[in-house]
């Protein structure tokens, strides 16, 4: 474990930024935290978390995949992929660190997604333990320890200091370059205990997952509650786009006039055209689309991934849904623990 004073944080940022682009949460003019490229003058936000999740760094909302040139009947395919630059994402919370595991299990399994893998190999994650969790947080439900977030390097923040500990070789290498002073873990343990106490007081602390999991398809699929839960769903994509673990994408072509760029962009299972094809649509109503999103996170994903839930409990959808319908309400209604 290493220690640095909170006052010297900018010097540390500068050091990290020497070898790689550094991104960290910083407040925009609305006072919302957004991941911002660090340069002198960019201030690390005090907010709990960013509005958009850091999945953008590895799986951006829009990314060009390949280009085509057509001439007469002929087509030329151009591989426009480029090697990503090295970058460091600082200030990732425990829930978002888990989200990378969840995304890895989709994108890195065979056949590996080279776009995602490329960024993943070049990105170092520095997580920061939570000290002031919000009422919308429920990471504990998914056995995530907000006081010990993981990633390549973990940072704990106390009143006046930061404590650093590396979890991976990449993290150790980066940390060794920062020349921090070694220290014990007493202060960190104290901070952990404080946060732990608050985590237990949170309104969603006791949300439980017993009613969900890979084997619960039959028990949940035809439940009548889906209809009432989804009755006022607007069918917008807010929950999916702020979600750190939503990974569905669409592949589209854009004709620039000179060439065709095939790009992929985030898609949302809440959209009416998500499964629409020439011969029909297997999810015609919003009830089915709504059910798909939550079944995917709470049943289908665990069924394919050793029981790990596809939700990290970050609470973004809880605070951002235009009609305040969210995975917590779904779990409470269907989970039978009321």
């Amino acid at each position, binding site marked *: 474990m290493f220690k640095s004073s909170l006052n010297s944080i900018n010097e540390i940022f500068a050091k990290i930024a020497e070898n790689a682009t550094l991104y960290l949460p910083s407040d925009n003019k609305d006072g919302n935290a957004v991941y911002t490229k660090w340069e002198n003058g960019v201030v690390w936000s005090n907010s709990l978390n960013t509005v958009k999740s850091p999945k953008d760094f590895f799986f951006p909302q829009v990314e060009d995949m390949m280009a085509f040139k057509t001439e007469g009947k002929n087509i030329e395919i151009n591989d426009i992929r480029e090697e990503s630059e090295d970058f460091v994402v600082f200030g990732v919370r425990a829930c978002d660190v888990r989200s990378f595991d969840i995304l890895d299990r989709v994108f890195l399994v065979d056949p590996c997604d080279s776009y995602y893998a490329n960024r993943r190999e070049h990105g170092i994650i520095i997580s920061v333990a939570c000290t002031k969790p919000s009422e919308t947080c429920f990471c504990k439900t998914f056995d995530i320890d907000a006081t010990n977030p993981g990633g390549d390097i973990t940072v704990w923040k106390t009143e006046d200091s930061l404590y650093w500990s590396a979890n991976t070789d990449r993290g150790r290498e980066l940390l060794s370059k920062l020349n921090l002073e070694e220290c014990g873990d007493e202060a960190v343990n104290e901070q952990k205990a404080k946060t732990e106490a608050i985590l237990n007081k949170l309104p969603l602390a006791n949300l439980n997952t017993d009613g969900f999991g890979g084997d619960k398809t039959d028990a949940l699929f035809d439940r009548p509650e889906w209809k009432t839960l989804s009755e006022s769903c607007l069918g917008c994509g807010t929950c999916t786009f702020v979600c750190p673990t939503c990974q569905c994408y669409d592949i589209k072509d*854009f004709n*620039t*006039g*000179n*060439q065709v*760029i095939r790009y992929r962009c985030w898609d949302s299972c809440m959209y009416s055209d998500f499964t629409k094809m020439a011969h029909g649509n297997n999810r015609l109503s919003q009830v089915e689309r709504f059910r798909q999103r939550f079944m995917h996170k709470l049943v289908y994903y665990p069924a394919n991934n050793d029981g790990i839930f596809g939700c990290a409990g970050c609470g973004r959808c809880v605070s951002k849904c235009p009609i305040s319908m969210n995975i917590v309400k779904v779990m409470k209604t269907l989970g039978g623990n009321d």
Partner: protein
Amino acid sequence: MQVNEYKPLIVAFCCNWCSYAGADLAGNNRLNYPADVKIIRVPCSCRVNPTFILRAFQKGADGVILCGCHPGDCHYTSGNYYTRRRMSLLFSMLDYLGIERERTRVEWVSAAEGAKFAATMNDFAEKVVALGKNKRLEDLRCKK
């Protein structure tokens, strides 16, 4: 790059009944107007949907001009009156978003006004050249 080397791309939407004929007349009378003006013929100026204008900018236009029959002379009686309202609001909105207001224009050109057509295009092109490349409403993908 020197200013005088810069060739703007100007899209002119011309209504079939007046302005397109006006452009024809300008050609027949050998009146000069910039070759950078690309004319798109539309059945009536009110055929032009705001997306057409934005689309033109996206695909690389530096200026978009919309020409139709004089108010009162519309082949379909009232099409250009609607155009007038739509474009007033659209141009005002583009200005509000900080897009240079000289990049867009509506001009009424009748079939007999070949000279006006040429003069309008010359004037418009000059203004667009003075503004330079369209940077505020461009789609970089289309430049590749």
